[in-house]
């Protein structure tokens, strides 16, 4: 009998563990299911909210939706942000559930992902506004240049647009903390290079013009050496 009880002890312990674990698993499952439901709700809510404030118009006008469509995505930016909301809630629920199960490593990993999702959403919003702004500036530059009769209005507009877009992209990247230092450095190098190139171009191309200007601003004094009267 004792042998039997010895033999049965692990089973009993196992069952005791199981009895201890099963409610927690059930709870975790409940949390996940609840979270999933909540996530679906959140997705709809975010989508509705963003559309109510015409965020979709903004992303459409900024060209992001078209960009996404070209990339093969069937949904627009607003839906993407709503999807992010969905995943945020789903992941948060998973973190809670897994934490409840005591799976700390996975929890930590997921926790980092959870923290990343809002940053991504914010980055998308930044890009949306930035891209719209870039378009507006581009439009304004083109209209202005056309009215004052400058050639290459279109090109100037595009330069302005892309310049702003680059800044916006950097801010967004900064926001999601991707690339970090290297992106910043490379931008600085690029920017410095551009400025230097412009300076050189103007300097070389406008050397004579600059000389004329300098002449006008700082007239050279008559050369008093040479033929001046005999030195006493």
């Amino acid at each position, binding site marked *: 009998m004792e042998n039997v009880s010895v033999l049965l002890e692990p089973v009993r312990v196992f069952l005791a563990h199981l009895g201890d674990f099963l409610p927690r698993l059930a709870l975790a499952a409940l949390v996940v299911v609840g979270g999933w439901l909540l996530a679906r709700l959140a997705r709809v809510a975010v989508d509705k909210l963003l*559309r109510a*404030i*015409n*965020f979709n*118009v*903004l992303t459409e*006008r900024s060209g992001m939706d078209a960009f996404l469509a070209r990339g093969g995505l069937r949904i627009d930016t607003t839906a993407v942000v709503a999807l992010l909301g969905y995943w945020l809630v789903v992941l948060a629920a998973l973190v809670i559930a897994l934490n409840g199960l005591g799976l700390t490593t996975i929890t930590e990993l997921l926790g980092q992902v959870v923290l990343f999702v809002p940053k991504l959403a914010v980055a998308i919003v930044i890009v949306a506004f930035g891209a*719209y702004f870039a378009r507006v500036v581009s439009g304004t530059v083109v209209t202005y240049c056309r009215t004052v009769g400058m050639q290459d209005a279109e090109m100037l507009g595009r330069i302005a647009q892309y310049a702003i877009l680059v800044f916006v992209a950097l801010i967004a990247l900064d926001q999601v903390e991707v690339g970090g230092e290297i992106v910043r450095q490379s931008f600085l190098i690029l920017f410095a290079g551009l400025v230097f190139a412009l300076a050189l171009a103007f300097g070389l191309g406008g050397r004579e013009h600059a000389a004329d200007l300098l002449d006008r601003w700082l007239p050279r004094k008559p050369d008093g050496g040479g033929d001046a009267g005999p030195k006493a």
Partner: protein
Amino acid sequence: MNSPAVNAPAPSTTTTGDPHWYKDAVIYQLHIKAFFDSNGDGLGDFKGLTSKLDYVKDLGVNTLWLLPFYPSPLRDDGYDVADYHNVHPQYGTRADFRNFVREAHRRDLRVITELVVNHTSDAHPWFQAARRAPPGSSKRDFYVWSDSDDRYQGTRIIFTDTEKSNWTWDPVAKAYFWHRFFSHQPDLNFDNPKVLKAVVRSMRFWLDMGVDGFRLDAIPYLVEREGTNNENLPETHAVIREIRALLDAKHSGKVLLAEANQWPEDVREYFGNGDECHMAYHFPLMPRIYMAIAQEERYPIVEIMQQTPAIPEACQWAIFLRNHDELTLEMVTHKERDYMYRMYAADKRARINLGIRRRLAPLMENDVDRIKLMNSLLLSMPGSPIVYYGDEIGMGDNIFLGDRDGVRTPMQWSPDRNAGFSKADPQSLYLPAIQDPVYGYQAVNVEAQSRDPGSLLNWMRRMLAVRNTTRAFGRGTLEFLRAGNRKVLAYLRAFEGEAILCVANLGRSAQPVELDLKQFRGRIPVEMVGRTAFPPVGELPYLLTLPAHGFYWFRLALGSEVDVPRWHEEVLAREDLPVMVLFDGWTSFFRDRVVPWRIALAEKTRLQLETEVLPGHFQPQRWYAGKDATVTRAAIAAHAIWTDAKSKHSWMLGLYDVHGAPGTAPERYFVPLALAWEHGDEERMKALGPAAVAKVRQQANVGVLADALADEPFCRRLLAAVRDGVDLPAAGGRFEFRPTQALAGLLDKVDIDTLPVARAPAQGTNTAVTLGSRLFLKAYRRVQIGANPEPEIGRFLTEVAKFPNCVPLAGTLEFVPAHGAPSALALLQAYVPNQGDGWTHLVGRLERFLTDCLRGEAPPEGGHGASAELVRTLGRRTAELHAALALRSGDPAFDPEPVTDADRAAWRKRVHDEAIESFAMLERHRSQLAGPAHEEARVLLARSSDVLARIAAAGAGGGAALRTRIHGDYHLGQVLLARNDFLIIDFEGEPGRTLAQRRAKQCPLRDVAGMLRSFSYGRGSALQQAVQRPEDAARLEPLAADWEREMRAAFLEAYAEAVAPAPVYTAFADARGLLELFELEKALYELRYELRNRPGWVRIPLTGVLALTHHANDGD
């Protein structure tokens, strides 16, 4: 409902029983001796005049003024009276005179005679007694005597050509006697009270004979005082006041007309405070009318009228162009007189005293236009006009006769001997008739001119008839309009809310003029002679062009009285357009289409569009149905932004729920809008100006928001979309453009992009556009949910029945909502060149016929043969239409159904109910009806039970076999005349009914009844247009009734014959009972409509109902 352009019934002025009758008088001045000789003694007489009273009455005047007919030596044409109480034997007897007055009064003509009291003939018993009476005696003092001829030195001599002094020595009296005129006309002495007594006695004598007034001859010279010029003395006025007081005491309604050839401010004194003369001549106006025409400059007339003082309320000016005296030039300056002599009396023989002894026609060199212009001025200036006998036919004069006899020659009645004036030997006439080739009686006479509809005589009759339609000419105020063109005289005559605009071109060439009529904005000028409505007065100066010496009289009618001409289109850009600031084109109106920070602005812009801009645009539109209710909001119910990829133009197709009076359901309207910007699209923006809804601005760019149906690219794009069968998704549904089979043929070899687009005349609730000479686009403004019968029937007739006499349907535009039935928005039809609708053509023809009859022209042979032939064609086409609609095609919306007894019973019941409603309404409104309508209403109400019995029995004969789709609103306005054939248009049905009612299958007899009623309206409308005087009506009514009878017969005969092969009726002849029922139904409907809306037209349906109750099948 049929209606001509002008629907105000012609009022008429009548002077009977009015104590101020002289204010509306038109006076005909004549000489007994010159008018008509009844006894062949070479001199006119009272019997002759009496026999010609019908002529005078027919001319349109209402008062006769007779020159002196008293016993006299006739040394001054009777103004030298020898007996105040008798008739000169050569003119007849006192009994003849009494008879003449009675006959004149019987014709509503009043009689004014001469009261020559300043002087008598020297043959007068008073003078004969006075010259023998001892100085100082009462008898002697009947006249003014003096021992010397140097008293009253400051007095001018009037007849400068014959008299040297105002004093003449009388060898019998051994004293000088005073005379202001000829030396055989001694002046009476009004300082002697017995003189006044004697004068009053003779006045009473003639008043008792029935005379209605006196012309007081030479009235300023009654009393003499030393040291004055002996004219207009206060003592003279005192005498006149006494005469007036005695007149008023016993003889009210009689009139005193002062002859005072004085400046207006002096003449004004003769009205006193309304206690002297009732009327006085406006002498200075007359030469200035001549001067204005000679100088082609309005200044003389304007100037003299501005100097004319106001006169007491009960007084009136008498105005004239010519009279029995010379055209006096006393009341002009020396320079003006020289000018007048140069212009009008280059021949010195034409001058006499200070004037010109010629008639009107020779003064105008027989230029009919100028004669008419002069007369138009005479008839429209303030005052009662006087027409001198003979001037109405343009008689000439004879300057080879002495004194002023040249203008006193016999009236020219006919080309017979002595101008038809007398049967006497030509040598024995008192004066020879005019015989020269231009003015001689062979060329100018009443008989010839009566027959010539375009003659001066008939023109005068028409003008006098027109003048008699209003009191504004006689009693109205005068206001000159300062037109820029000085050759044009424009003035307003206004009386009791009525305003008449007179415009006259004084120049010898055509002249334009722009008139500032802002105070009458919205009124519609109706030319009074032809009663044609002109475009309404708007914001801009009113532009008129007048032919050489042309003139117009316009009644400025209120918009509620008269319809704007149908072809008129308001093309003025509204100046007070609201301005909208758009930040993003069309999307500025939609809050869900703008970036987040613009949402509030978009909502505000939308609100401005819906509550300010669109209501302001909708309210004045002709297609807007809720005329009386203010539009509070036009809410966008469905819309689509439609962009043309090629031209980059974009439009907003929108349906609007228009909210009117509170508590009423909103109505839906279709208004496509276009946006055009100054920058880059300036031409299009300007073209859209007249249709602009608002001005818009987007940053520095300005533009207009306009009705897209005025936008050519839009109309072309719409056509292309119909051709391609486009589906345009919209918020709330989709817009469906669909072609029919006919479109491809119509667009064969047509380049849509170059198709000319023109706005067609508006048609009530629709807007129409023509595309080249190919297509006709008709946009329904008011949107009704459900299938519209017009495209439905159009498609059936074009594609299924292949009915050739309708306009082929080419395509449709419908709005199909996400849930619910579609609504038709626009229709594309083939464009068919035509000569206008049947109403304009047939009724216009009848109107011309009636006018011709009035002018005395014999009705043309064959009566209304041409019209009847057309109407026969119409009957045939109508029958063919009904046969086509009775085709069995398997389409349940069209397949005919048999007429059952239940149907007939239901029809009878409906008409019965409507009859009871109509009678109740007639009873309520009867007291407001005037004239014959009142009596007819009484007769109808008395006969109401007969009508109901007839309704109960109607249709027993059967006849009608099928119920089919029908036209539903069939009348002469719904058929177009093209190449002597008819096209049937407008299958929309009666606008007042619901779509379901209009689509119901009915008895085709309804259409037949509608057309028969239309003939009745045509008759009434033509009569109203043609009748200018009440007495014309009696003459024309039977002629118009004949026309209607003839048209009905022609229509029914042709219809019956052509409809026989179709299974519509078992036998058309049996269906007459039902036809009568439907005709009655229609007439009762019209009766209710007219009672509610146009009481002046009630007689037409009223006589219609009465006629239907008289005969079972009248006139067929």
